[in-house]
């Protein structure tokens, strides 16, 4: 058994759903901040949602409606106050912190509006870090990170510090970091929010390409209707609830 196989054994494994299966199943999800206190905020008020494997879904809604909270819940970055979130068949909320961290590392990729790259690491170091956390040999991790960055057109910027890169380049590095562990779901919180329209279009094209190529599921939070319409369907939220689901396709060329 190789080292990597051994590590995989320790983390919860998802069953491989076929395309018609739900990769994400959310039932009656609630999230309250400052629970029991006078300033309690009920951010999510019973969300029910199903997302099929390989889908590309956008979440839209006004500020404060709970979009990012929902995304954080899906990514298990925060604890829910009620309800269930199943990714494939696993309810990660029932896992210990260590197993949940490993689950997140192996199965979920994050892309943020502000890129959230480590400013003190180079592009390639940022990208290889999740692999190192998985226990990969540093040489192997480095090679895979380089390969991925080259694929994303960042071959000449491998050793640049994030602050030496443009917004679009930084986001590509962030995408590479999200993809490097080959996660089933990629979550994007306003992934193009800090980019100009041309770069935003490039990034969305990149997402779609990856989505099609790897059959990876994308859940993107956005304010931008144009971005949302690049997805397969749009979930609208108001006041912590899903108000409407708009099915695509939205574009002729899709």
């Amino acid at each position, binding site marked *: 058994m190789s*080292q990597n196989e051994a590590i995989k054994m320790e983390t919860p494994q998802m069953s491989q759903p076929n395309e018609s299966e739900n990769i994400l199943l959310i039932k009656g999800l609630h999230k309250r901040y400052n629970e029991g206190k006078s300033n309690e905020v009920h951010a999510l008020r019973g969300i029910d949602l199903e997302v099929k494997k390989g889908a590309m879904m956008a979440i839209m809604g006004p500020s404060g409606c709970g979009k990012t*909270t929902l995304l*954080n819940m899906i*990514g298990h*970055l*925060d*604890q829910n106050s009620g309800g269930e979130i199943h990714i494939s068949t696993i309810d990660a909320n029932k896992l210990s*912190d*260590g197993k949940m*961290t*490993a689950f*997140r*590392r*192996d199965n979920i990729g*994050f892309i*943020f509006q502000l890129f*959230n*790259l*480590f*400013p*003190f*690491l180079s592009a390639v*170091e940022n990208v*290889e*870090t*999740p692999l*190192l*956390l*998985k*226990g*990969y040999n*540093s040489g192997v991790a480095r090679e895979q990170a380089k390969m991925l960055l080259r694929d994303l057109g960042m071959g000449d910027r491998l050793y640049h*510090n994030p*602050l030496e890169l443009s917004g679009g380049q930084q986001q590509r590095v962030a995408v590479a*970091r999200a993809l490097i*562990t080959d996660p089933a779901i990629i979550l994007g919180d306003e992934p193009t929010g800090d980019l100009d329209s041309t770069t935003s279009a490039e990034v969305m094209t990149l997402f779609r390409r990856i989505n099609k190529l790897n059959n990876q599921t994308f859940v993107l939070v956005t304010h931008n209707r144009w971005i949302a319409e690049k997805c397969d369907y749009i979930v609208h939220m108001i006041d912590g609830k899903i108000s409407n689901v708009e099915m695509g396709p939205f574009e002729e060329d899709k």
Partner: protein
Amino acid sequence: MGLISSIKIAKRALTRRKTKNFSAILAIALGVTLMVGIQITTDTLENAFLTSLLIREGEVDIRFSNGTGGFLTAADKENISALVTDELAIMPELKSSGPAMIGSQFEPSVSMAGIPFDYDAAFGEFCYWDSGEVMDISTYLTVNTSVLLSSSLAEDMDINKSTELPITLTTEFTINDNVLVGNETVTVGSEVRVNLTIREIFDSRHPGIGASYRGVVFSLEGYQDWISLQDPLRNKDVIGAYLIAYQTDHFTTPIDEALLQERFDALEEILPVKMVNDQEVNVYAIDSARLLYVGIIDLIFTLMSSFLNVLGLLIIITGILLITNVQLMSVEDREFQTGVLRAVGEKRGGIFRSMLFETLFQGVFGGIFGLAGGLIFGQVVALYLVSLFGSGSASVQPIVKESVVIFSVLVGVILGMLTGLLPALRASRVNIVEALRGIKITFEEKSSANFAVIGVLLGIVGIFFLITNGGINKDLQYIWKTSGWDNLLEWENILLGAGFLFSGLGIVFSRYISRTKAFNLTAIVLWGTPVFMFVVAMGNGWITDMSGSSMGILIIAIIEVVIGSVLLVGMNLPYIMRILRNTLIKIRGLKGVAQVAPALISSHKTRSTLTFAIFAVVLTLNVTVASLVATNIDSTIGQSEEDSRGVDLYIQLSAPEYDLPDTSYTNELYKLDSSITDVIGMKTFTPSSTDYTRYVATKDPYDPESGFNPQKNLLPLSFGELRSDQIRGEAQNAADENWRFDFYMFNLPDGVRPSTIDLGASDEELLNQSKTAWDRFFDPDYKMTAYNITFDLENFDISSMGGFSAATLDDVDPILDINGSVVQYPIVFTDSFLLPLGMPIWIAFNTSQFGFPVYQPFTIGGSFDSERAGGWPLSRNMQTEGFSSGSFSGTMGSVYFPERFSNYTDFFGMVDELSPDKREADQFDTFLVKTSYPFDHPGIDTIAQLIEDFTNTRKSGYREIIDDEFMVATATSLYSKLEASLEMMEQMTSFLQIYVNFGLIIGAVGMAVISVRNVAERKREIGMMRAIGFPRYQVMTAALLELMVLGFIGLFIGVVNGLLVNVGFSNMMDVPVVIPWGTIGAYLSFITFIGLLAGAIPGWVASRIPAAEALRYVG
């Protein structure tokens, strides 16, 4: 925006950033605490020394005694009163010392004093030991056998406050006339033992008159009775001295020393004179122990205070590093706000001012808190001093001068402002765009032109120092001359010159090449020059001329070594961290930590460097002190063992052994334990402080030309008789290998002397020269030229040790007699630093019936090498008595002369049948004992105890053999003497380490502050780490590792630097280097512990932050 708005911004920053300001104020407070602590402890220590010395003088300012020896009389009081003006009181006193036994406890030399009942209240009071209430001594001292006992002697004799009184004290008086003692008539020339009744015990620690007496107090009339027994004329009108007090309560109200000196000088001018041997001599001698002590303490404390201040200054650097670090973090924290301020129109000056105002406020608060901290620190150190010097808590009260309060706030403000300058400058120069974008990583830039100008100026200063050698100072050699590397002064210029020049060059080069490359050059030279001096120059014995300030050079070298090493590591931190990363990344479970922690360290180069620099400075000092002490102790023990030449113990009897027909003390010692292999009996003599007739004269008393003045030319030195058989089997046979023990001479007589003592010579060479010197000593025909070295105690300069350099007599003229012939005398050897080689001395022999003059002249032919563990077991630094015991003669040393002269003096009891000290040739009082045990074997202490038990137990052992309970032996192992000085060395070291370790506290606080700040400002990064899969333990480990790595870098630099300094000194002293593994281990543990403590809590907090919350954080 103007001044007011700058103050407002500063005020707002202070009130809104409470935690962050707290760390800055804490840092400043620590710095001030240290400065105030040093100030308070220096003042306290000085006061403690002064008080413990002055307490012995009670309220006495000046003493009048007989100018030509002997006693004063009641009639002298009027004369003295007429001379003294403005005095508060005059009091007669009669003092001497003698043996005393209380129960089975014996003290060979107890001070005894007679004082009048009607002494003036200005001299203070006697107080009861148990209750502390004032005592009326007249109710107790009713007859001449009633005495009071001092509490300090009571403690020495195991008497406590609950011991029932009265108790009996037995002492001895010499009687020169038939006298009725009790009902018994005692005859001429005998010693009589009398029982005195201790009626009460007074507190000799209570300030006042009681503090002056540490033995037994009689009424003046009572003691005059006893002293008169020694006078054939039975004169009872005898006064030892008249005491003058100019004020009372000296303990609480220090006297004006300048005024006292003025009065003393004025009195000296008007002292009446009389003619002695056609010489004018003063009728009265005056002395002021108070002035003498103050002078000595001034000297000691000028040295000590400057040493402590330099040490403190070095540690303050650590404080400055911490404060600067904290301030820089503040600037980083608020770069965004600064950017906004700049964007809305605030000028650079405004930003600069508001930062300075902020640091000013911090300085004031830090100063106030630091004062409080300093007071506590001072109190703690004062308590420690009590245990160290054991002079009573009353004498070690923390001294807080009013000026310290102002000083502390001022230091706080200066520290705040000084350390705020760089951060304020950085804040004012913030790049608005980058600040608003939140870019916190700075990229290496080339230095500015202004900075380069500073570099040029530094370079010029460096060149100035370098060309001082040979150029400005012609006495020194040019740097390119071989002989230019053998002098400490030259090295001082080389160190300073290279340091400044290459610092300047580094700055200038950094304008044209990368800073890392430019400052690597600076760092290598700064570190390399002193290391070269320590390891190569000192290691190969290049430095032969030690003139110059070795302390100054040590400080310069340490500063350069520290700056150089810190700069070198700081500049290369990214490379070092890369190596660390590549090493750690191979460890499973630490790969994520390896990826981020080293990168975090190298990305904040300034902050990281300042953090490990704190430890580097402190630990360099610590390891230097620890390793120097360890090396010194180790070499001292090793050298002592070698130089003891098998002598393990020395025994001193309270009186010469009895002349027994069938046995001797030596024989009895052999019987005690089969491990005793050799006992060497010796005769010694110590004149009492009033026995001027047995002092050494340093000028010819009979030569009217010599200007002999008994007040200035008599020295109270001890004597010893040396026989050839004590040294070796055959005294006249230099080839005889059968030496009983070896020794080293530091100075050698004529004929041996041409081979001037060469410090580089081997022990064997030195030993052979010393053996030849002993040939001269025992040769009855050998006489040595007396050289024209004048010695005057009055002009003796203690700071330059008299200014004698006795190893050579090349520039000194021989003394010629009236016929022009060179005067030559037999030689004596000495262990006294007062007597230089070739100096003639006159020893009083009362043997005129044998044709000798009363004073027999000798020439100092050699001195024992006290650097070699005494070289001679009886020499100065091996004696039981030292300065602290108040024994003047013990301090001055001894003179040893050959046995043939002993027959002509009654020092050793051989003059005539009538001598009260009559001793046979083999009646010894001091014994050197060899055992079969190694030098430091505990069995030697067992033998010492055996000998003391054998001699000191009532009605058994030796006392039973001689039928005398008045004999006491003190057996001391040489190793225990060494232990005492080692203990003292360790105590002084631990005292210094209080200061040095304070730097560790600063380092620990620095770690904690940095750890907390790291977590606070990296919340977002922590969120990212958690999001991409860092387990909690790795988040925590990353925070921990960052701190530990910085701490260990500091430790590594400190250990390497400290050991390199030690290598130099070990090389110089030609002793093996001792690495203080224990101390290094302790520091390693400390840093690990502090790193864990400082990193674990914030790290744990960081690891518990929900990732989603951390990602929302905007710093």
